[in-house]
């Protein structure tokens, strides 16, 4: 089992930061729906796009957004992990990890 520091950036190059940014974006979207339900429920019956009402559109949008952000995250992680700087950081992290155990 690894005994490395969990918040050591060398062991999770860039992906943790990207994850947090996307996480905050989703929290705002999710909180937006709950806020409307609690404080402006009358908006949910409006039909902003002509077809379905805002309640359904927002709900479907949240499910779609989760998938979309997940794909963005996967692509971004691949780019970060594939960069030369990241490979170097990961490799030096490995050295640090070994030293830590010693």
């Amino acid at each position: 089992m690894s005994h490395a520091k969990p918040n050591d950036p060398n062991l999770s190059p860039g992906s943790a930061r990207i994850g947090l940014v996307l996480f905050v974006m989703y929290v705002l979207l999710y909180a937006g729906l709950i806020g409307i339900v609690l404080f402006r429920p009358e908006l949910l019956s409006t039909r902003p796009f002509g077809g379905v009402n805002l309640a359904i559109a927002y709900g479907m949008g949240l499910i779609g957004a989760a998938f979309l952000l997940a794909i963005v995250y996967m692509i971004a992680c691949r780019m970060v992990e594939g960069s030369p700087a990241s490979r170097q950081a990961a490799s030096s992290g490995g050295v640090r990890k070994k030293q830590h155990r010693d």
Partner: protein
Amino acid sequence: MLYETSPLAIAIFSVFVLSVIGLSFFLGRKGQSAQGYYAAHGEIHWFVNGIAFAGDYLSAASFLGICGMIAFYGYDGFLYSIGFLAGWVVALFVIAEPIKRLGKFTFADALDSQFNSPGIKLAVATSTLVVSIFYLIPQMVGAGDLISPLLGLPHTAGVVLVGVSVTLIVVTAGMVSTTWVQFIKGSLLVFFCGVLTVMILNRGLIVNAGGDAGVELKPQVKTICPDGMRLIDGEPQSKTHDLRPVGTIKSLPARYAGQASTGPLGPLAYLSAIEDSTIVTWTSKKHTDVQGVHTTYSPVERSGKDLLKPGGYFKGLTTGTLSDKLDFASLMLALFCGTASLPHILIRYYTVKDQAAARKSTVVGIAVIGAFYVLTLYLGLGAMVSGALDPTSSNMAAPLLAKTFSTTLFAIISAIAFTTVLGTVSGLIMAGSGAVAHDLVENYFQIPLSDHEKVRCGKIAAVGLGIVAMVLGVAFRNFNVSFLVGWAFNIAASANLPALVMLLFWPRTTKQGITAAVSVGMVSSLTWILLSADTFEKVYGWSREASIVPFSQPGLVTIPLGFVVLIVVSFLSPRPTQRTG
């Protein structure tokens, strides 16, 4: 309502159960290491693991519960879908990769990876067992509830059938067989829900489906006499004298004036047509006198607009009191935070080889689970206007909807409902088995176990948990189980999430802080639930007003409390030396 037993459903279910048990014996025929039993050797392909996430997560509560809630109350059921899926965003962006990096077999491994603390091991193993057992109860009771109407067997038979099958699956090949059962179940569930949705859209909306105009709009009274006899409108209940199925369209939107049916509709057109229709739903009112318990089911016309906005189930949203609003916000917070704290979900991260695979499998999980939750909206609304609903049981909405298309589809959906229980229960028993053998016996009590003994210990724990699950499934048979899933989410989120998040993002976190946060989160959320108005009314049968907590869902208070306790205790305890170098 009384149901016809379906031999085809029995046949399909038997074939599935025997196949997965056969597969488990096949997978378990080779000797197994602890790494194989608890983590499937870390060799499961990320795509298979992603589908298995869906099989693990989409419990009977998701499938039958949400479809039923949408069919009975409209949009509010979809809010559960939204919350259940949103939890996966926490899992992907915050939890997945660290959990994989820090742990080996269990969630306790990850939280304890820096400290080697007996306190953390005991607290986390206890919270794993408590959450797993609270999640097991509704699954087992659900299995028993379904087996009576669908297969014509008594409640106990359903509980024992699921308990024995799942114990066999887990004991034969541990996480390997559990993963494959969940993969098969996840695939079948989403595929057949997709098929059903296509059929719903193809049928479109039909005025007064399955009914006879004029007869529909009379209330009916069901009486349960003190001697257990059941009466419908004063006459003994029988297959020829039963409650009428409910849920129809009274009138279509103006653009279909003069038509009895819309014909096939696209996914968005279907939703917008429902919104512009008038729908006949029903209300139920209960009263008790010397002759027994009477429930009156009265038809009521409602506009589609009302049904497609919040407030049908969460009635407090329309009355507007602060405590009702806080209760709703608290539930949505618990759903958001609970998913990534459920032990049976977390252990699935140890079955893949590395962090990248953990990430990719979560993305597959989000895609499949998200697609499923979109389908639940169509299944629920399709059931609402199918003219086939049983007003006494929302759990039967999805199977009864399938029955309006064909008996074969009914048999398949019923069989899948049972397999839904199998997949989730096997994951829960696996999580509990790891907590007992790995966290408690080996790590907390420091009993040295060889690799082989560790597997045997896990299998004995799995059998023990299987028996506990069966006993609880029978003991809680008359219990209102819908909010037990909410309990599990609240306890998981309150006990586990603060500790995990702070360990990852706050270097000052100490072992005393983690132990205190897990213990306080678990005990405070449980206590809050036991003192809540919902529990007073539905469990103890007391007045809601006697409750001493301001709203029923604890998450809004107990999740932040876990963070506060962790921060305060960490500041009061010595700075962690291992983490500062």
